[in-house]
Each structure stands twice: as structure tokens, then as C-alpha cells.
């Protein structure tokens, strides 16, 4: 009976979202306050209902209700309690429900925190979010109902994919979705502004903190995914250019471009059209990502064609959202006020270049991801695009980004001189040179890209530090606020990431070998001694656990216990063991036993320097995003001119 209540709650939420999508729009067009307020009430009610239905599904997992098909497929009697929570979003139906829950959470947050916005603008924003939610709920209810029953009821369930039985996977999807779905708010703001012809500088100011928060969550989600893949897949890699990863990376790239473009629009009034386009594109790519991951096209285009309901639904949804918003843009854009002019060398130009490079980068990832699908759909052969395609192009495009990045925040709006910038930046340039030369001598295997990456990272980090020190020594009233501090922290993170990403691969050492108890092997100055294996038993698996003692220069560094697990459902999984460190990770993976008695094993040993820089860098980017979003500037009340929805009085002095 209870699961049916969850279903009823979903249908109730659908009705509410449809109401939210219509009444406030009517209210906004004829100034009816009552109708406009439906948006807020609806957002609260919708969030409540979806939360109820989510809790009901979670409850079904906790009490092991195998009469619910989704539970029976993704859980079993032996599954530990903590993984019964993450099993809720371990597969298709539940992860869509999580998507919807997070969308409702964002909508709820917009309803609560946007009291200072003009009523009509808020009503339109909530209406757009209502439409997005309605589309998604239709999808969940008609194609992916998580509450479907299994008759007769199963005695025991299958199992949650063992790869997903890991603490990292408990938080990775919610964080990723917070980012993914968060871009729906930037999107809703853009569409609402177009609908009400309110594409003003204030509009961008309202929209910016939301974009920052969504971007920060997406950064965290991607970083968690990469970290999880690193230690859980057992192959020591941190990024595979896999279509599923690309699906979340594309919105991130465009979201990054959006953040920079919004800065220009807010401060100078320029790039308005471009900011709108990017807001629409970022969310469209989030939907495309959902489509790619959830429709089954990635496994095989033909699998998608044989069971097309889900895929076709998201595809149609995508077409409506992208097509509709672009059409609206085409109708409204020509009438928009242009911003002020800027010179060839100015912060505007540098941010424009940043945007161009990022968009090209996103297009490159998109091409590499979709091209194989296109060929497969045309029956032109099954191909895959090798990681070197992405790696090479990504590295090439990072060069202009990294070189120009410090110029971006050092330069002045409207016009600047190269001479002045050079005067500011010769110290960081020198630091970069020293870093590059030091790498050449200290890490001979780093190679060209490794040296370039370290130099680039030092160049960015030194510029950040110098800039921050200068700004902190200015007059008390003009010291950097949270927004500027956040920007510095995030860019410092970019520098750190660059060093980690470019150095880890060339400097890492790995060895696949056969080891018998008592064998030892030296890798990168560390001696790994294999002490043998023993049987261990977990809550829902049995495992062979190897013991490796690691020595360096005769001293014991650590002991590592990698496992080869066999889950009760018969699935086998490697649980790698690692000793993390700021400058290096030691990593051991157990392969398969090589003889009948189980004394000889295939073993993978890795020494991975600087890999932590990658995630620490990403965490700094995230922290910078959150800090910037909390700036007081974004909570200033709305000026009177904007409340009337008038065009920019404050920009009238700046004709195009």
C-alpha cells in the first residue's frame, strides 16, 4: 500500500507543477498578484510531495520490500544499511527520482530566497522551473516508475552493483545532480528575463550566485566521480574520457564560460546575448547528459532503437526545451540594449577569448562523444574515439587559457596597456620559468607537457598570490570581498589542478607482475613485499585479502591490504588498497590467482606522484565558487528602476 502512496505523491506533484507552469505566467502578464503567488506555494507543495515519495522509496529499501521491482533489482537481504540508502539512486528509476527531488529542492530555494526580486520576474522564473519539473515528472511516471510492483513478490533481491557499494558513491550522484540540475535555475532566469524583456544588468546579478553554487556543486560531483573511479575501478586512472564522464564535463565547461560571461554582463552590460545563449546551452547539455546516460544509447544505439520509449521521451523533451528557448531568444534578442564598447586589450577581450576557448573545448568533447553514436545510427560501422583525441586537444586548448588567465584578472575593464600588465606580471612569469626548469632537472620523465603544466600552474598560482597580496594592501574600504576572494581561490585551484593533471601521468610508474608470497619488487624507490593472502568475510561478500608491506630505504612505510571480493550474488570485484600522500600515492591492486592453490597472484603496483593535486585543485575551485556566491553584493535590494521592468536606465549613456 505504501509504495502506491509514493506513486500518488508523484502524480500530485505533476498536477502542481503544471499549475505552477501556467497560473503565475498569466498573473505576470496581467499583474495579478494572487496568480503570481501560486508559484511560491506550488514550489513548496511540490517539494513536499516529491520528498514524501523519495522517502517512501528509501523506506522500501530499508525494510527490504521486494514486492517493489526496483528494490528487488537493486538490493538484497545481505546489503548493509548504508548501501540501502545509496541503492535508492543506484539505478535508472531511482536516479531519475533523485534528479526530480533535487530540481524541486532548487525550485524551493528559488521560491524562498528570491523575495527581493520583482514579483513578475519571480513568477516567470518559477513557472519555467515548473515546466521543467512537469516534463521530468511525465517522464518518470510514464516510462520509469520506481514504484512498479513485482508479482509474485521475490524472496530475495538481486544485488546492488558492487562497484556502487562504496562510500564515494553515496555522495557522488547527489552532488553531481545538485550541479547538473542547478543550471536549470540559470536557465529559468534567462528564459524568464527573455519572456518579460528584463535582460538587465540586475538580472545577471540575481542569476550569478545561483550559477556559482550550481557550478561549485558540479565541480565537486565531477571530482568525487574521478576520485571514486581512481580507487574503486582498481586501474589507477583518474579520468577516462568515457562518454558518461564527458556527459557531466560538457555542462561544466559551458558553465565555466557562463560564469565568466556573466561577470562581463554584470559589470559592463556587454555580452548579454552571449550570456543568455550560454545559460540555455549549459542546461541543454545537462539534459543531453541525462539523455546519453539514461537512454541506453551509449551501450548501443540499436538497444535504444529496440526499446525507444525512454530515449525518445528525453529526446523530445530536449528538443522542446532547446528549441523553445532558442526560438524565444531569436524573437527577443534583436530588441536588446547593447553594452558599452571596449578596446582590443581589455578585460572584456580577455574574457571573450576565455569564452571562445571554453566553447571550442566543449564542442570538441561533444564531437568526440556523439560522432561514434552518429556513425552507429547510420550503420556506418561501430567506432570509438580513443582517449588521445580528447587528451591532445584538451591540452592544446589549455595552453591559451593558462597563459592568458592571469592577464584576465590583472587587466582593467574597457582598456588596458600591455606595458602595464607586463609590469605586474613579470614576477609570476619568472616563478613559472623557475618551476619549469626545476621540473626539467628534478623529474626527467615529465616530458614537454609535464614541464609546460608545472610552469603554467606556477604562473597561475604565483599571479593569484601576488594579486591577492596587492589587493589586501589597498585601502580598507576597497579590499576584496568574498566574490573576489572566491575568484582568486578558484583560480589558484586551477593552477594546482594543472600541475597534478599534467604531471601525474608521465611521472607515474606502474608494474603488472606475478607475485608469490615472500616475493618483493622495487618500484620508484619503494620496496613492495608480498606477505601472502588470507580469507576474510564482509557483510555480503567473501574476499581474498593480500598483505603488502612497503619499505623505503629499509624503513617500513605502510602496509596495504588489497582485496579480491566475491559478492553473494556471484559478482567479483577488486578493492584496491592505497596509501595516499600529498606528493605521491602508493597503490596496489590484486588481479586474479595464477595457480590452483592460490599462492601466486597477478598484482598491479603503482606509484602515482602528485595525483592529489588534481582533487585538491578541484576542491579549491569548488570552495571559490561557494565563497563567491555568498558575497553581500548579491543580496542587495533591487533598485526601483528595475522593479518596473524598464530597460536599463543606467546603460543609456553607452550606445552600441
Amino acid at each position, binding site marked *: 500500500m505504501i509504495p502506491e502512496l509514493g506513486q500518488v505523491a508523484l502524480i500530485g506533484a505533476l498536477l502542481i507543477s503544471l499549475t505552477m507552469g501556467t497560473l503565475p505566467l498569466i498573473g505576470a502578464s496581467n499583474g495579478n498578484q494572487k496568480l503570481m503567488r501560486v508559484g511560491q506555494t506550488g514550489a513548496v507543495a511540490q517539494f513536499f510531495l516529491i520528498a514524501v515519495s523519495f522517502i517512501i522509496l528509501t523506506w522500501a529499501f530499508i525494510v527490504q520490500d521486494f514486492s517493489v521491482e526496483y528494490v528487488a533489482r537493486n538490493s538484497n537481504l545481505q546489503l548493509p544499511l548504508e548501501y540501502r540508502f545509496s541503492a535508492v539512486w543506484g539505478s535508472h528509476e531511482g536516479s531519475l527520482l533523485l534528479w526530480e527531488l533535487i530540481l524541486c529542492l532548487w525550485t524551493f530555494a528559488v521560491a524562498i530566497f528570491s523575495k527581493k526580486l520583482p514579483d513578475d520576474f519571480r513568477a516567470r522564473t518559477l513557472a519555467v522551473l515548473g515546466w521543467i519539473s512537469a516534463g521530468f515528472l511525465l517522464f518518470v511516471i510514464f516510462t520509469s516508475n520506481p514504484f512498479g510492483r513485482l508479482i509474485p513478490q521475490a524472496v530475495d533481491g538481486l544485488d546492488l552493483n558492487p562497484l556502487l557499494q562504496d562510500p564515494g558513491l553515496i555522495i557522488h550522484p547527489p552532488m553531481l545532480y545538485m550541479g547538473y540540475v542547478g543550471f536549470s535555475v540559470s536557465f529559468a532566469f534567462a528564459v524568464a528575463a527573455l519572456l518579460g524583456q528584463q535582460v538587465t544588468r540586475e538580472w545577471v546579478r540575481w542569476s550569478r550566485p545561483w550559477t556559482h553554487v550550481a557550478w561549485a556543486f558540479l565541480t565537486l560531483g565531477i571530482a568525487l566521480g574521478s576520485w571514486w573511479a581512481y580507487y574503486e575501478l582498481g586501474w589507477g586512472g583518474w579520468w577516462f574520457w568515457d562518454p558518461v564522464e564527458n556527459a557531466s564535463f560538457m555542462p561544466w565547461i559551458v558553465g565555466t564560460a557562463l560564469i565568466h560571461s556573466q561577470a562581463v554582463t554584470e559589470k559592463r552590460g556587454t555580452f548579454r546575448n552571449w550570456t543568455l545563449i550560454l545559460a540555455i546551452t549549459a542546461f541543454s547539455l545537462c539534459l543531453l547528459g541525462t539523455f546519453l546516460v539514461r537512454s541506453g544509447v551509449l551501450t548501443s544505439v540499436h538497444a535504444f532503437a529496440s526499446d525507444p520509449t525512454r530515449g525518445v521521451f528525453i529526446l523530445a523533451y530536449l528538443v522542446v526545451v532547446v528549441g523553445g528557448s532558442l526560438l524565444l531568444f531569436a524573437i527577443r534578442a534583436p530588441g536588446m540594449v547593447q553594452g558599452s564598447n571596449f578596446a582590443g586589450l581589455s578585460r572584456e577581450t580577455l574574457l571573450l577569448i576565455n569564452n*571562445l576557448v571554453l566553447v*571550442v573545448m566543449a564542442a570538441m568533447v561533444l564531437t568526440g562523444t556523439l560522432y561514434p553514436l552518429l556513425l552507429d545510427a547510420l550503420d556506418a560501422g561501430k567506432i570509438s574515439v580513443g*582517449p588521445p583525441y580528447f587528451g591532445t586537444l584538451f591540452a592544446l586548448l589549455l595552453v591559451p587559457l593558462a597563459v592568458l588567465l592571469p592577464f584576465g584578472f590583472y587587466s582593467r575593464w574597457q582598456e588596458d596597456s600591455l606595458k602595464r600588465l607586463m609590469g605586474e606580471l613579470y614576477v609570476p612569469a619568472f616563478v613559472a620559468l623557475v618551476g619549469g626548469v626545476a621540473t626539467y632537472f628534478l623529474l626527467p620523465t615529465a616530458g614537454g607537457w609535464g614541464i609546460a603544466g608545472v610552469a603554467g600552474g606556477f604562473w597561475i598560482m604565483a599571479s593569484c598570490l601576488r594579486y591577492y597580496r596587492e589587493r589586501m594592501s589597498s585601502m580598507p574600504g576597497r579590499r576584496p570581498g568574498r566574490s573576489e576572494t572566491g575568484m582568486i581561490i578558484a583560480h589558484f585551484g586551477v593552477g594546482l589542478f594543472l600541475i597534478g593533471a599534467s604531471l601525474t601521468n608521465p611521472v607515474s610508474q606502474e608494474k603488472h607482475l*606475478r607475485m608469490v608470497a615472500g616475493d618483493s619488487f622495487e618500484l620508484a624507490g619503494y620496496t613492495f613485499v608480498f606477505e601472502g593472502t588470507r580469507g576474510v568475510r564482509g557483510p555480503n561478500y567473501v574476499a581474498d585479502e593480500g598483505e603488502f608491506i612497503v619499505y623505503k630505504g629499509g624503513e617500513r612505510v605502510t602496509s596495504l591490504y588489497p582485496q579480491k571480493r566475491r559478492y553473494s550474488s556471484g559478482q567479483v570485484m577488486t578493492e584496491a588498497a592505497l596509501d595516499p600522500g600529498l606528493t605521491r600515492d602508493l597503490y596496489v591492486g590484486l588481479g586474479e590467482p595464477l595457480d590452483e592453490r592460490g599462492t601466486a597472484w597477478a598484482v598491479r603496483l603503482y606509484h602515482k606522484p602528485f595525483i592529489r593535486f588534481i582533487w585538491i585543485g578541484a576542491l579549491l575551485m569548488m570552495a571559490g565558487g561557494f565563497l563567491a556566491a555568498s558575497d553581500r553584493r548579491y543580496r542587495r535590494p533591487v533598485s526601483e528602476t528595475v522593479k518596473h521592468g524598464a530597460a536599463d536606465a543606467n546603460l543609456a549613456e553607452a550606445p552600441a
Partner: protein
Amino acid sequence: MTPTRKRRLIAVLLILAGVGVASTIAFYSLQENLLYFQSPSELAQQPMPAGRQFRLGGLVKPGSVERQGEGLTTQFVVTDGPEEVTVEYVGTLPDLFREGQGVIARGALDDSGLFAASEVLAKHDENYMPPEVADALEESGHLMPSKDEG
């Protein structure tokens, strides 16, 4: 032409040139990194030249997995029914690699027709089960996992 317009024209030309260069590099890089997927039957009809990288996919023929001596070299046969190809791989095999299961190997044929793999991937979906098997289970309403291996 006014100075502003001239500046804009230069800016637009520079952008176009940049995007042009980027797309050219992207195009060539894509061409270089395309890997074709072949089944043993397709390979029998149209052999790949030796040394050319591609991906070979099929089922691991039961009883064909053989370890060579003391090292990490493994040989196995990939089949799709009518045709088969022998694969040699040095390294540790993925967790899901098993006889009778789907597998994808990346590598190239050598002169003797042996496929030297540089990477072996075992195929799986998010439920760790081929869709047909899952469907069959669903039809019977029989969701009990097989315990024979545990």
C-alpha cells in the same frame, strides 16, 4: 571604414582563424584516434592489415583461456559463433573477465594472425547482466540470484 568597424573586422577575422585552426586540428586528431570495432565474422570477411589498431569484440570461448608459463601472458579465443580469433594479452585481466562472457579487446593483429591486445575490457551494463538474461528472469518472476559460484 571607421576605426571601430575596422577593429571589429580584425577581431572577427582573428576569431574565425582561431576556430578554423582548432577545428582542423580536431578533425585530424579525430581521424587518427578512431578505433573500429570488429567482430570475428567481420574480420573473416574483411581482414584488417597487421599492425592496424582496432577493437575486437565477442564472447570468450569456454575452455580456451590459457596461461603461459610463469608470466602474466594469457591466451584466449574470442568467438561470435561462426568465426573465432585468438587473442594474446600480457597483464592482469579485468574482474568481469570470464569464459563464456562478453569481452572487448583493443590491439592489432600480428603477422601470424594472432591478436595482440593492449587492453581487455569485460562488457557489462549497470545491472551486471546481459539484457536478455535479465528479461528472462523478469518474465518468470524469478529474481533469485544464482548462488552456485559463491
